[in-house]
């Protein structure tokens, strides 16, 4: 079982905060990897918010391929951030870790965001495809104001390896996952969080319904629904599919992955719509054991469980800063000064949504269809 730590804040925070929170939950992960996604970036990135950031890892040969490819696509490099690598025992360093800020190709500068998003995703996929066979390039995300870092190893050691404790890298939302490897190979693309077109999520627990969900997503004809080196990647793609592609409000994510029983649906406002949603999205129903933490492009963060609540999760904090964690000790680490009695332990019908800028937290109840 992995451990998850997310912090959303009005002020910029260091990614070390959720990583230190992960450290308090160390019993729950085996150090087989750390994944970090940062959104709403500060520091040097603060002034570059509208430009897409390509995050990834490459070898020396991959770097040249990447440079040539991006140039050919018309992307102009505006800024590059590289972690100052500090060699750490047990972590085999790759040649280059990067977060590169690009300017859009001229033809796309005035295009609507949706088209830009498709360009960015397709570019990321092309980069991934070219570097995947020889593992010369890994591309994790390519989107404005988002950075993703991943490496195999103990989270705290990986943070040290990246020098995150000394680097000025900051963000308002940080998702961190300490990986407990389960049935799948230890591989960088299997490391959470997963990101697609502004939507990001990380999960703990196996996904027993993985294969039918993967087949359903893969057959939507959307090029971004690929990869699936981890069974958890589908949670991110379901989020993207229901909210971006189908245009459902965020809380319907809960209705899609853990649909109500027929008798419960009848009592919900909008039962007719819900019944059809349940039928049409039947293959996306998960069966746990899972707890999912994620964010949407507007900066809202959420936590949701499988319908049997087979994994723990807690949300706590103060106005302006909330922590969404696998365990209470993680919240204590990230937001020690808070009223613990107000901590939220979402139950099977609940979806906790923290609004953008950590303004407020709401618990949306699926049974009643309201917060």
């Amino acid at each position, binding site marked *: *079982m992995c451990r998850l730590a997310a912090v959303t804040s009005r002020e910029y925070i260091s990614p070390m905060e959720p990583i230190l929170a992960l450290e308090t939950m160390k019993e729950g992960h085996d150090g087989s990897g750390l994944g970090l996604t940062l959104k709403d970036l500060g520091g040097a990135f603060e002034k570059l918010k509208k430009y897409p950031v390509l995050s990834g890892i490459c070898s020396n040969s991959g770097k040249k391929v990447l440079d040539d490819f991006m140039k050919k696509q018309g992307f102009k490099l505006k800024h590059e951030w590289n972690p100052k690598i500090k060699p750490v025992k047990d972590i085999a360093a790759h040649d280059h870790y990067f977060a590169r800020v690009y300017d859009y190709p001229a033809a796309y500068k005035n295009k609507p965001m949706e088209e830009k998003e498709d360009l960015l995703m397709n570019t990321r996929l092309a980069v991934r495809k070219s570097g995947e066979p020889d593992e010369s390039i890994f591309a994790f995300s390519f989107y404005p104001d988002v950075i993703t870092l991943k490496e195999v190893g103990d989270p705290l050691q990986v943070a040290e390896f990246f020098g995150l404790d000394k680097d000025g890298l900051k963000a308002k939302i940080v998702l961190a996952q300490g990986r*407990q490897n*389960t*049935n799948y190979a230890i591989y960088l693309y299997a490391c959470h969080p997963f990101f697609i077109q502004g939507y990001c999520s990380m999960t703990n*627990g*196996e996904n*027993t*319904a*993985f*294969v*039918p969900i993967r*087949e*359903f997503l893969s*057959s*939507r*004809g959307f090029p971004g629904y690929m990869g699936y080196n981890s069974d958890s990647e589908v949670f991110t793609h379901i989020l993207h599919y229901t909210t971006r*592609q*189908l*245009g*459902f*409000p965020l*809380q*319907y994510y809960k209705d899609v992955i*853990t*649909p109500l*029983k*027929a008798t419960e649906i009848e009592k919900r*406002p*909008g039962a*007719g*719509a*819900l019944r*059809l*949603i349940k*039928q*049409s*999205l*039947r*293959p996306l*129903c*998960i*069966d*746990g*054991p899972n707890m999912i933490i994620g964010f949407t492009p507007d900066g809202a963060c959420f936590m949701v469980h*499988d*319908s*049997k609540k*087979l994994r723990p999760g807690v949300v706590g904090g103060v106005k302006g800063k909330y922590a969404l964690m696998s365990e209470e000790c993680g919240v204590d680490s990230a937001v020690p000064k808070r009223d613990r009695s107000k901590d939220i332990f979402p139950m099977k019908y609940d979806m906790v949504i923290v609004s953008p800028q950590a303004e407020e937290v709401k618990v949306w109840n699926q049974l009643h*269809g309201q917060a």
Partner: protein
Amino acid sequence: MEPATRPGIGLDHNHQLSLREFPYIIRWRDDRCKRCGKCTAVCPVKAIVPAVKGARTVTSEGPVPTPKAVRSITHVVEQVTDMERYCTGCGACTLVCPNEAIEPEYNQQNKFLHYKNKGGDGYKRGGRRNDPSISTLDRLKFTRISMLTDPALDAGRHEFRIRSLLGRIMRPEDLPLAAEGGNLVLDKKKNIFVPPVREIYPIMIGSMSVGALSPPMWEGLAMGVAYLNEVEGLPVVMASGEGGMPPRLLRSKYLKYFIIQIASGYFGWDEIIHALPHMVEDPAAIEIKYGQGAKPGDGGLLMAQKVLKLIAKIRGVPQFIDLSSPPTHQTKYSIEEAVAKMIQSMSMAWGFRVPVYPKISGTKTAKAVLNNLARNPYAAALSIDGEDGGTGAAYNVSMDKMGHPIASNIRECYLDLVKQGKQNELPLIAAGGVGKRGNLAANAAALIMLGASAVSIGKYIMQSAADCFGDEYNRCSLCNTGKCPRGITTQDPKLYRRLDSDRVAERVVEVFKAADVELRKIFAPMGRSTELPIGMSDGLSIDDKAMAERLGISYAC
């Protein structure tokens, strides 16, 4: 030279058959038999007869041999060597014998099929494919067991929703939805046709007609199904088979638990159409039969001896005539006509409130039908009946040699739908050999994980609910003759009074409740409870590499 076998010339019995040629040989115990005559009376085919034998016993008493011949008469039970009266092995004689003196024994060396074609007609029978080997379904194992990384669920404690959908399911993109105050509601302004969809139990009772089945059998099944729905909360549905339905049932509230079949003979549809204005509930669905697993490409047949008064009335035909349905729907000539127009007509008859789907026999061409249906937004499902499906009457060659196994047929159809992204839109119903060796829940679960939305059973329920004698050694298989010794497939009151419809209903309920428990016991350790694991092929393995490759599952040994 005159042949020695001509009457009056020779006594070597040459053109007669010995019992070794017969599929079952009666083992009769002289020492136990009390000559009550029950066995010979009950034998449905008169394969055994009471006979009188003369015996000559030579005895000698005293120290010097003084042989004395005593002639006596004994009564025996004798098996006849007439192929028209072969012992079917049903064992009705054993059941009625008070002294356990008689029993048929399967004879592996039999040459039955060499001889069972008298008069130049092939062997016709009821029953199932006579293949006792272990089917693919029974070789499939559930190998993805949750334990530590993903804890197994508790079959007794957790809530399980073992339900499926029958009906055309809309593409999520096409749903008529509108946002209203942050919620989604149905957008009626869009005026989009939303196809009818039923939530059903994933094991259904397949098509067996009133006529093929005896009144108490059909009634027992129907009562069991109604009880399961009304009392047990299990939405089990049952298909009528071709031949209509009892008129009172058509007009009752229980009609919603029944799927009405229309086949190429249209038997019973006059009655159904006339009942339409009086129906208080819609049926669960309409099944258009194009084929069945037991006799692919062959029509239905109800033999004259089964067409008694009630059946004649329901079907709208005279009594005691052979009722054969043609192999195809004669009014149609192409797949577009046969499928699309039929679906359209049937949908229209019920105001597009009832799912309408075709049933075909397992075939290499199933994908062609599938793709036609996938493009037809009114097609509610596709039911595929594999080669192990049973029947009331067919040529032996059709049953034994024609058709396609269900496992790979359903799998390739499912994967074809996956390729098109329509795996959730068109439910597949799998039939043919489900529960062949008694593993109902396991076979059903395996087919579901291969991609079926539901499975259909026939023979299994006849055996488990009404103790049908049939097996894969051609035991009994008299369904076509109207002489069913269990009273299941007969219209002869003398025979069907043996069957108690209440007991059949009770058994139906027990069977489904037990299957429900077993399905939980399969799904729980695999970490599935909320939704039926349709297409969860990573849960399955098989001990044969070629089969694993064909089914797209893992090989395990």
